[in-house]
């Protein structure tokens, strides 16, 4: 229910400038007799569309389409970034990537992060959002506290966490201080737990986004539904379960999409916390790609990895759109087709 326009009075809002612009010819059309006017208005409309979309399309082509096409081209060569690119190897780079143990474990790590992000952040984010949606003292302060990590620069937050988590760092000292010294671990140094440590930091960092989105979604749940439920004698818990969460569905599904894409492209936090180590325990597709490309100058091979990452993201995004978001898209108000 995120900021869904209320449908009925959209046409009247002055914000809808495209609609306003279209309305004039529409009301004028019946009065006009010939097809010439229609033709010129069509042409004008096309010109308008071209005019307004051209800059965005140009940027999209330059910074998205061209690099993607280039990456596909590079991925079929063996190339170290220097000199001419003349050693065509076909699909060798792809076979090499897909049979590489480190890359396949990177893909696994990305999938684990997707699943864990949703399993951890969804209930936690929902609970906090429901809590912060109530009239409690210090509500705005708590909102700021929860959202703060999301605003912090990734690099800064990462470096601080590295300091906190290092052996005999603040985390260990705090555990010692409360008598839990036995629980101290090599948080980032033990291959068996490093990925979970990274997960904790990621949760801390991105929970704020989930809470913010859910809170925004909660604003969209109409007051009268609650009132009706209360009149029927529903408890607070029943109201949340039967009304709030179902009405929050579209927001949750959109957040799930963002979370999934973010998990697939995860780079900066892992790079700073562990660099993909120890012993490749936290390597992700993106850190693997940088390691192979920038550090080892295998630009052809790294491009193949990038194309695979692109492919996986695309497939997952399309599947998610099709199976999860389709219902939301169908229900969403359609852009009004102007008949002329």
């Amino acid at each position, binding site marked *: 229910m995120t900021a869904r326009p209320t449908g009925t009075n959209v046409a009247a809002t002055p914000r809808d400038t495209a609609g306003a612009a279209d309305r004039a010819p529409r009301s004028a059309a019946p009065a006009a007799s010939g097809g010439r006017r229609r033709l010129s208005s069509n042409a004008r409309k096309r010109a308008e569309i071209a005019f307004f979309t051209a800059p965005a399309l140009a940027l999209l082509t330059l910074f998205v389409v061209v690099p993607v096409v280039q990456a596909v081209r590079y991925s079929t060569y063996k190339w170290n970034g220097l000199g001419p690119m003349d050693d065509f190897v076909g699909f060798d780079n792809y076979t090499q990537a897909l049979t590489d143990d480190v890359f396949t474990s990177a893909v696994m790590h990305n999938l684990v992060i997707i699943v864990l992000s949703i399993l951890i952040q969804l209930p936690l984010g929902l609970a906090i959002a429901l809590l912060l949606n109530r009239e409690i003292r210090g509500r705005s302060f708590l909102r700021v506290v929860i959202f703060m990590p999301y605003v912090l620069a990734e690099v800064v937050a990462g470096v601080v966490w590295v300091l906190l988590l*290092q052996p005999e760092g603040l985390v260990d000292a705090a555990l010692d201080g409360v008598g839990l010294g036995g629980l101290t671990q090599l948080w980032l140094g033990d291959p068996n737990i490093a990925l979970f440590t990274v997960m904790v930091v990621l949760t801390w960092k991105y929970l704020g986004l989930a809470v913010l989105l859910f809170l925004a979604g909660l604003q969209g749940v109409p007051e009268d539904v609650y009132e009706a439920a209360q009149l029927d004698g529903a408890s607070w818990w029943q109201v949340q379960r039967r009304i709030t969460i179902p009405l929050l569905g579209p927001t949750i599904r959109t957040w799930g999409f963002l979370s999934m894409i973010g998990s697939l492209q995860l780079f900066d936090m892992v790079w700073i916390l562990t660099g993909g180590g120890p012993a490749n325990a936290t390597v992700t597709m993106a850190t693997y790609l940088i390691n192979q490309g920038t550090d080892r100058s295998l630009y052809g091979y790294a491009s193949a990895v990038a194309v695979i990452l692109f492919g996986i993201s695309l497939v997952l995004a399309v599947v998610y759109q099709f199976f999860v978001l389709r219902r939301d898209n169908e229900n969403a108000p359609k852009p009004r087709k102007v008949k002329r």
Partner: protein
Amino acid sequence: MVRNRALSAVAILATATVLTACGGGGDSDSGSDSGSGTTLTWWHNSNSDPGKGYYEKVAADFEKANPGVNIEISALAHEDMLTRLDAAFQTGDTPDVYMERGGGELASHVEAGLTKDISEDSAEAIEKIGGSVAGWQVDGKTYALPYSVGVVGFWYNKDLFAQAGITAAPTTMAELNDAVAKLKAAGIQPISVGAGDKWPAAHYWYYNAVRECSEDAIEEAATSRDFSDPCFVKAGEDLEAFVATDPFNEGFLATPAQTGPASASGLLATGKVAMELAGHWEPGVMQGLTEDKMGLGDKTGWFPYPAIEGGQGDPTTPLGGGDAWACSAEAPPECTDFINYLLSDEVQIGFAQNDMGLPTNPAATGSVKDPALADLITVRDEAPNVQLYFDTLFGENIGGAMNDEIALVFAGESSAQGIVDATQAAADNE
């Protein structure tokens, strides 16, 4: 020279925008006074005084002696310089005078036609520098003049060694193991290693290979890219045996090399561990990691990597590397004059007096003030040759594969044979 790759990607991310913004700004030489002069662009990494000021003076002196030549200096932070150089090589917009680290990296620049052959124009300087220049030669031609070459060895804390009852620096592996045992018994963490950055861990294997393999075997591997000599597996077995004695600091798999007090260098500087295998940069790095800017101060000791019984390599050969001045292929002829000047007695003596590195010109080696560095120069110059770091020698690709696999051995997830296999696979794929 600060070898710190861990943060290089962060540096890329953090500075990419800034760099692209000022990338084009460097060429704004509007109307030089000296008329139709030549401009040389020079990138170096001495971006703090005294080095920065010294190089400004050197450039000014050269301009005065060569009217019409104008030198444009970019003094960059080390990591920034490497990032910018990488980008410059790919776009072909290289500075005239720049730093080369030799080995496979240089070879790929030469292959791509980016670096000038200076064998003839710098013949005099090459002869004066002597053997050190070998790391910057490809197919018998010289492409850069090394101005600072250092060696790797164990830096140790004399007090902690005394505390553990170690009276003499270890000279063999058995003695090193003995020292590790004594330190542990005294409750002291013996060795810090920045295995999180991989290359500090890899130095152990490189050194084992230098001790186990004859010079010819390494030379053969460097030229034919064939690692089938059994000495390379033996180097790995020695490493496995050493790792099994558990001599390293707690959490070494994630320990960074040089950043922060919990890094390998920081642990040594703050007296948390007794020793670390590192290069000539170590005292400087440690000074930056302690509050009093003294590092370990008088407690600093150094001993070479121990000999390995039965090894075919020369037990005195140090592992090392350095920095050299090169001219880009398109640079004007004055470029070689300038780098020859940079290697002259006069400039190298000043370089040594300012503690900017370990000079290669024999006329300057006596002018190094820091006693620890002066000792290293003796070690370097008395050795039959200095073995270039393998990751530099074999280039980023093979060297990177090697380092990754060696780090896995430290984690107990690969083997002696695994290192050779991964290295050979990367080499076969070149």
